[in-house]
């Protein structure tokens, strides 16, 4: 009963072309032919297969193929595999289809080895062989010839490494444009774009020795780019220097505040904090200077502490950095007194 996932075959004795024309007329049940699957997976696979079949019937292969593929992933069935092969062939993915027809042929042969009287497998084997025979002349191939290979230098096709064993052998490919690159590690030494079309073979010759000779010298993986300790030390010194400058400016503002306060506290400025207009102006200016100096000073001192911490916690580098290790004393001055920040290697 043609209800379960099935695979289209033409009536026996007809030519393959007519068989394809009658595709999806006869759907042979496949239950029991593939590997086992969980019941819910099988049901889902069946739904996907049905959807794929509907798209296929409407010749919407771009939609049909992923459905067959998803169904196959959930529940491997020979019929679904052959459906997928035919779908890919119609979609133009000729090398992909070729591989799937071949896989289907091997599968059917295995079934027949187990049961030589298995009629369905016989029909499918014939069907797959016919399609493969018809397809093979159309599958484009790329012959990659690599001359003067160099150790550590490889070829990638669209980012994926090409097995050196394939060099010199025609590789079946789906019709498309491919980017081939000669690479050394992550370094791209040369790039080529190759477009392959159905029924035509391309040849690309790469003289790897010459490409390597023309390329810039290799990056030494053992050479440390920039010691992280150095970057951290530089950052620490920069922060310390900037913050130290802020502290000095803050000190200047505090000195300004002290001078202005002196003007306010002169006898003709303020007496017991009761001020003449001139005295009040000086007192207000002193307050503004003191506030600005206070916040700038706090920020600067905190920044200095952060900078020193970053500087002192920088990992040791192979080269001695005397500035980063020598003990130091940093004086600071504020309105309430002064202090020293002491640091250095312990």
């Amino acid at each position, binding site marked *: 009963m043609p209800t379960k996932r099935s695979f289209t075959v033409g009536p026996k004795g007809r030519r393959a072309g007519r068989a394809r024309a009658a595709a999806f007329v006869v759907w042979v049940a496949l239950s029991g032919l593939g590997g086992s699957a969980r019941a819910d997976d099988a049901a889902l696979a069946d739904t996907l297969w049905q959807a794929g079949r509907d798209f296929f019937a409407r010749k919407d292969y771009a939609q049909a193929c992923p459905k067959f593929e998803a169904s196959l992933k959930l529940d491997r069935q020979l019929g679904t595999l052959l459906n997928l092969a035919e779908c890919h062939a119609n979609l133009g993915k000729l090398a992909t289809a070729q591989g799937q027809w071949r896989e289907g042929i091997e599968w059917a042969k295995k079934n027949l080895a187990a049961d030589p009287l298995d009629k369905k497998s016989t029909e499918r084997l014939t069907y797959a062989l016919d399609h493969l025979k018809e397809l093979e002349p159309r599958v484009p191939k790329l012959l990659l010839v690599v001359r003067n290979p160099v150790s550590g230098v490889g070829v990638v096709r669209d980012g994926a490494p090409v097995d050196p064993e394939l060099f010199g052998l025609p590789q079946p490919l789906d019709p498309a444009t491919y980017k081939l690159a000669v690479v050394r590690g992550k370094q791209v030494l040369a790039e080529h774009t190759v477009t392959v079309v159905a029924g035509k073979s391309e040849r690309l010759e790469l003289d790897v020795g010459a490409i390597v000779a023309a390329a810039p010298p290799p990056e030494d993986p053992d050479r440390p780019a920039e010691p992280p300790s150095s970057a951290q030390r530089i950052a620490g010194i920069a922060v310390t220097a900037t913050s130290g400058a802020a502290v000095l400016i803050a000190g200047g503002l505090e000195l300004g505040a002290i001078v202005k306060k002196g003007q306010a506290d002169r006898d003709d400025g303020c007496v017991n904090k009761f001020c003449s207009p001139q005295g*009040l102006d000086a007192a207000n200016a002193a307050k503004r200077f003191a506030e600005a100096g*206070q916040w700038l000073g706090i920020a600067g001192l905190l920044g200095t502490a952060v900078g020193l911490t970053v500087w002192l916690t920088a990992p040791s580098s192979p080269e001695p950095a005397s500035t980063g290790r020598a003990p130091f004393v940093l004086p600071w001055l504020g309105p309430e007194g002064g202090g020293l920040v002491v640091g250095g290697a312990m």
Partner: protein
Amino acid sequence: MRRAAGALLGAASAVAIVGVASPGCVGALSLDGYRDAVDELCRCDEQLAFLADCEGVLSARLGGVSATTRSAWLAFFAERCSDDCTSAYACYAQPGTCSTVGCTVAEDCCGFATGATCQLGECQGG
């Protein structure tokens, strides 16, 4: 060891800095609480009602006198008029704020209490 010591030093420095600096420079310099003596005096508007623009007039007069006169006026104000308005007119009548030239009313003039008068916009006598 060295990194841990550095981190400890940095943290200790930050705490020390914040601890020392947080009381504030404004407080440390004792910069709060300064007041305008003229503004304080002009709050006594009952006693100085004859002054149409008390703050404007007195600020201009006090700002225009010598440092010695201003210093003496401030000392007198701080001693007599900083707490209440009882002596407001006495403070006003000190050299520095009262007028020796132009006037609109007799009370404008220095020495009004001792007989000075305002005649044709000028202080006379006293």
